[in-house]
């Protein structure tokens, strides 16, 4: 019965079997999850962020659990571009879902250098520009909060990306996320992913020190979901129409909705809010097969609601009644 439902989506020119991704930093380079889940059932896969040179990462503690969430400050620990090409590309080549490589750096040249080297790789469908990592001293979030810088870095990387899809990941730690989203679109972004984590802190009251060695970390998990749904809807309403001139549904710049997704109903909320696809993040740590379960749950919802194609659901939020005083 669920087989008759079409949950395939178009995402910036990519035909995806379904709208479910796994988010950067929560699924490694794919080999780590091989024993636990079948990644080929997903719509898309986003690698842990790669930098030009390897990064050792922050001291520990790097994580702390909070109410329905967690803070992380890994510090973009990663093997660097060369080792990524030598050791990980062959693993990613075997994936049949759309593979995005998340790219981070300290300078625009860093980002461009990584993307240039990978732009011709068959295994890669696109790049996710991580300009919103809150856990590194240089680069990261500092790029993602200034509209002019967002446009500059996006357009520089877009040139290097060639035919590949360029997705820009947005930080929620800004006054108006739509301003940043427009800046990315202006720079040539093909898609937007939102949201990255919130900069946050937990204090040990016995020692009066922050729990994390990095002092602050990024808050993720179910705790941030309602904010993420709101911001996806805001960007969908305020940024998408600019491009699609009147035609909203399925048109305009596609949004990858991220933030505390753990179940199919969480995923569906994001899609109704305006996301063309969604990514499961923190929940992968708890249930490596979570994303695959969500795909089944989305199908069941569509059957129950007699939705023939998931595309009908994207941005289908009803306008609620606002009583004027």
């Amino acid at each position: 019965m669920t087989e008759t439902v079409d949950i395939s989506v178009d995402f910036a020119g990519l035909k995806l079997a379904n709208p479910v991704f796994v988010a950067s930093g929560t699924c490694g380079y794919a080999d780590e999850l091989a024993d636990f889940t079948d990644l080929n059932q997903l719509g898309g896969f986003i690698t842990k962020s790669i930098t030009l040179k390897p990064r050792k990462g922050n001291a520990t503690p790097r994580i702390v659990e909070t109410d329905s969430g967690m803070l992380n400050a890994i510090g973009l620990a990663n093997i660097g571009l060369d080792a990524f090409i030598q050791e990980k590309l062959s693993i990613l080549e075997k994936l049949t879902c759309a593979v995005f490589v998340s790219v981070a750096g300290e300078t625009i040249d860093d980002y461009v250098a990584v993307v240039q080297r990978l732009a011709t790789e068959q295994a890669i469908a696109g790049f996710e520009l991580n300009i919103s990592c809150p856990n590194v001293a240089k680069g990261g979030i500092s790029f993602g909060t200034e509209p002019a810088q967002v446009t500059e870095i996006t357009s520089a990387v877009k040139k290097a990306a060639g035919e590949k899809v360029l997705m820009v990941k947005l930080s929620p730690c800004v006054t108006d996320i739509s301003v940043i989203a427009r800046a990315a679109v202006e720079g040539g972004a093909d898609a937007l992913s939102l949201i990255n984590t919130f900069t946050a802190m937990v204090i040990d009251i016995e020692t009066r020190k922050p729990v994390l060695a990095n002092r602050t970390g990024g808050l993720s998990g179910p705790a941030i979901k309602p904010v993420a749904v709101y911001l996806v809807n805001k960007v969908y309403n305020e940024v998408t129409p600019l491009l699609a001139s009147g035609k909203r549904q399925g048109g305009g710049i596609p949004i990858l909705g991220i933030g505390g997704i753990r179940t199919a109903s969480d995923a569906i909320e994001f899609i109704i809010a305006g996301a063309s696809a969604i990514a499961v993040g923190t929940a992968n740590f708890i249930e490596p097969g979570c994303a695959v379960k969500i795909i089944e749950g989305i199908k069941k919802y569509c059957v129950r609601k007699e939705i023939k194609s998931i595309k009908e659901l994207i941005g289908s939020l009803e306008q609620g009644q606002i009583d004027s005083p």
Partner: protein
Amino acid sequence: MTNEKPNRGVFDAVVIANKQIRQRFYRLGLEFSGDGAAAFAKAKPGQFAELDLSCIALPAIEGIAEDLRDAAGRKILLRRPFSFCDVSSQKERTRVDILYCVVGPATLRMTTLSVGNSVSVIGPLGNGFRVPEGKKTALLVIGGMGAGPLIHLAKVLTTNYPDIEVIVFAGAKTKWELPFEKPLDEISQQVGFSLHEFAKYGVESLVATDDGSAGYEGLITDCFSKWLGQRSISAKDTIIYSCGPEEMLARMARIAEERGIDCQVSMERQMACGIGVCQSCAVECKVEGSNETIYKLCCEDGPVFDSRKVAFKL
């Protein structure tokens, strides 16, 4: 896909025992069948599993110690890692025992698990203790809750390596913080069979408490050093296995290095995933022939490390 049984995975286990040992110490018995039984039958001492306790009920408020009541209501998210104090297989089933101490909202929930309940378990994970060729003596040094994997190791050593002499050193702040079942009043300062958990494998033990409430008065590492000084053991034939607080492991590493004895330590870190994805559980390690250090992952590279490789900060 081959028909080969997986070495690890996500499995549902059934609770077959959950017994309070003393005060805040409990022992949970989990039973696996099918692929889970096959995977866990091969679990080695020092390996661990991640338990999902997020949907387990809290005890009634009067059953929650006052110092834990504030934390008790917090909705937990992540799985919790536990090592094993025993693994036994019979036919198509594998029983895994976990020694745990109630310290926060997750372990508090764990106490309400009853026989027949189902628990989602990821494992077995990480690398356990290794037994190098030619060792004649194994010295197991425990700090508090570090007892779990070393109880398991004592069983495996006495069963599979009958020629190796095993002696246990167990320490805690007070006798109330020793995670052992039997009354501890008879514990002496001498090596003997006072700890039932080891005596049942024919293994002698020596106890130390910081306050002297049982056994040797002082740190277990001092007690161990003193014992070592009174013996003429061959360093090359001996191996130390240790699990406990990091400060203690750092001291053990130093003692082992001074004496030229091989030493394996089981490290502990906050973990989100336990399978090498989240990169949370970094352990700073030395790089041979350099002053540089690198981060290894406690979950995938450990939790058992050669003590010479860890860059301890004392």
